């Protein structure tokens, strides 16, 4: 597992991090460097599903947001805006629609035509027609739809956290420093997995290699998997 992590480190050194706004025009919106081994970028018109609302969903859109894209969050009143900002989401280009109500599908359709990325947690279980209609709508208008918390039939990529562990807490002392999480991406082809700091001590999302763990917590004992 950690081999794949160091491989990514090598791959990252080759490609410059943060492709900037140039990536916006092309068909691929950038993702954070740490996520590149899971998916190369957010393809315009793509639907990506994430198992639950949280750090993974925000980390997924952070790269695009940093690169100049507008993002909208629909139906996520509990979205931790501070954490999102920490992982790289630009608050200047973020629209929140906490309570979309019954007309959520219509709201998402309007937004997909205007902003690059829409993060959605439907307030009710979506019907098959709604899923199909919105998937087609995203493809036609070139917006990326990130669905969190519910299964979505037409999703090309599915991301989920398979295991995670927080570090930094002792027995009555310390404070939360970071979470090592193993994220798996499933789509066409072979599933890919990666260990990430989701988030790291400053809120940033990076690849969690063994060296990084040692640098981070020299004093605290870790039960490192593997």
């Amino acid at each position, binding site marked *: 597992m950690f081999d794949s992590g160091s491989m990514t480190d090598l791959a990252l050194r080759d490609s410059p991090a943060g492709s900037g706004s140039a990536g916006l025009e092309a068909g691929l919106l950038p993702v954070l460097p740490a996520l590149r081994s899971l998916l190369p970028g957010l393809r315009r018109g793509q639907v990506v599903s994430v198992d639950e609302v949280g750090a993974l969903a925000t980390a997924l859109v952070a790269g695009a947001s940093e690169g100049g894209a507008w993002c909208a969050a629909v139906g996520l009143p509990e979205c*931790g805006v501070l954490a999102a900002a920490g992982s790289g989401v630009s608050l200047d280009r973020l629209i929140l629609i*906490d309570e979309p109500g019954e007309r959520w599908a219509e709201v998402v359709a309007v937004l997909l035509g205007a902003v690059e990325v829409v993060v959605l947690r439907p307030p009710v279980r979506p019907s098959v027609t709604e899923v199909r209609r919105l998937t087609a709508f995203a493809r036609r208008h070139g917006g990326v739809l990130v669905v969190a918390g519910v299964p979505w039939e037409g999703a090309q990529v599915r991301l989920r956290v398979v295991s995670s562990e927080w570090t930094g807490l002792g027995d009555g002392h310390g404070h939360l420093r970071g979470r090592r999480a193993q994220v798996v991406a499933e789509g066409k082809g072979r599933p890919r997995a990666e260990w990430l700091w989701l988030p790291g001590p400053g809120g940033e999302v990076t690849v969690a290699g063994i060296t990084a763990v040692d640098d981070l917590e020299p004093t605290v004992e870790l039960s490192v998997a593997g």
Partner: protein
Amino acid sequence: MSSARTLVAWCPDWPVVAVGADAGTPAAVVSGGRVTACTAAARKAGVRRGQRLRDAQRHCPALDVHAEDPQGEARHFEQVAAVVESFCPRVEVVRPGWCAVPARGPSRYFGGEQAMADLVRGAVTALGVDCAVGVADGVFAATLAARQEPAGAVAGTAGAGTGVVVPPGATAGFLAPHPISTLGVAQVRPDTAAARAEVDALVEVVGLLVRLGIRTLGEFAALPAGDVLTRFGTVAAVAHRLAGGLEPRPPATRPPGEDLAASTTLDPPVEQSESVVFAAKSLADRLHADLAARGLACVRVEIEVATEDGRRHSRLWRHDGLLSSRAVAERVRWQLDAWRTSEPGDTDALVGGVVLLRLAPDQVVADAGRQLALWGQSMVDDRVERAATRVQTMLGHSAVTRPVLAGGRGPGEQVLRVPWGDRIEPRLPADGPWPGRVPDPAPAVVPPSPLPAVVTDARGRVVSVSGRSEVSSPPAWIAVADGSPVAVTGWTGPWPTLEHWWDTVLARRRARFQMATADGRAWLLLVDRGRWLVEAAYD
């Protein structure tokens, strides 16, 4: 130039009347936890405008509380406006509950200003609505005249009151004894940042004048106009003209025949109000841009709608250069609503699809001042702006928000959600020392309100925190909301905070904990008066 003769019809406590409260019972309309209007009975019991709801209920426990409903206010006021319109077609709605008509022409027809005032008053009262009427030079003086009236009516026999007429040319003398704080009466309810800034500036000028010993409008009007402008700025100059019974802003001359109205034809005809409102927003944008390009502002805006059957409906709304495009669109929505819900047999009812929408500036004046912020307003992409506004017309103004970082200790307090298009400065600065702030990284899930939790120790007893910030025993299990207990693998705390200690209402002493659980998650917990709450989850 002296102002034109104006008749003002004023329905006291309109917001309460519009929600259907009886004037004899104590009732109040509340917005944002504060009383915005109340009935006479409530006033008698000590309820005041601007009071906190809590205080109001202390004065008057039987108070009947209603939520503010601007749309309903506008809709109900339409019947009053229609009655006043039967006397003179140029009715201007200053705001729901308060309208004005030019008095010079119609008063001759109805046999004098006093006769016309009484006729208007009688016609409105016949609707079962309490109404006061005043006639004077200009809307400001006429409103003050109208507001004098109900005092007499209450003292005398009900219904026998008459309109108050200030003779032509006597307006300055009539205004002189009024306290200077009445200048605030002339304000349209502010709904843009610029308008709010203007109201704040006016309040500041009034406060300054009072401290300088100038307590009445007469004393203020006696100051030389040039000195008022140079010393106190344009806001005060406008107020000075008002105090002297003059037109607040001198009319701007412009080449004849120039049409500043913005109109759009809707093809095919549109049935839903929503699409018309959406069109109105961009029309208002165009209107404002046209006016701004010429350095002008308008006192009133006329909303005109034509339907398939060839009928036209129009209504004037007070503008004063203070309304945003969004606010104009909102008035279009109210107006459409009001016309559509008229009586079924009513010939004035709006039926069928809308084919034409026109916004015309009425009485154009030079725009004296007010300026956009120099920085801090990030440019918003056109298409994003359009989409966000469209969602706002679907869900309401405050449903679409942008996050702004603010000061505070908990993760929920550090983010404000500001409605799209508004500009709100956080009350507390985000940068600056916040001792006791929860350390980074920030939690990814912050529920809008904390969830209840049960934290127990290894023997199943609920963990408590003493006044000396000591835990009764180490926490071993957490059950969040209705979930089953999960084992605690690491914990830290308590981090005590005493917040707002200087304020007896807001003051609270609480303690925070971070806990990691066996399922790979972590929590930010809060103990508040012995209760455990989950403030945020770190996943």
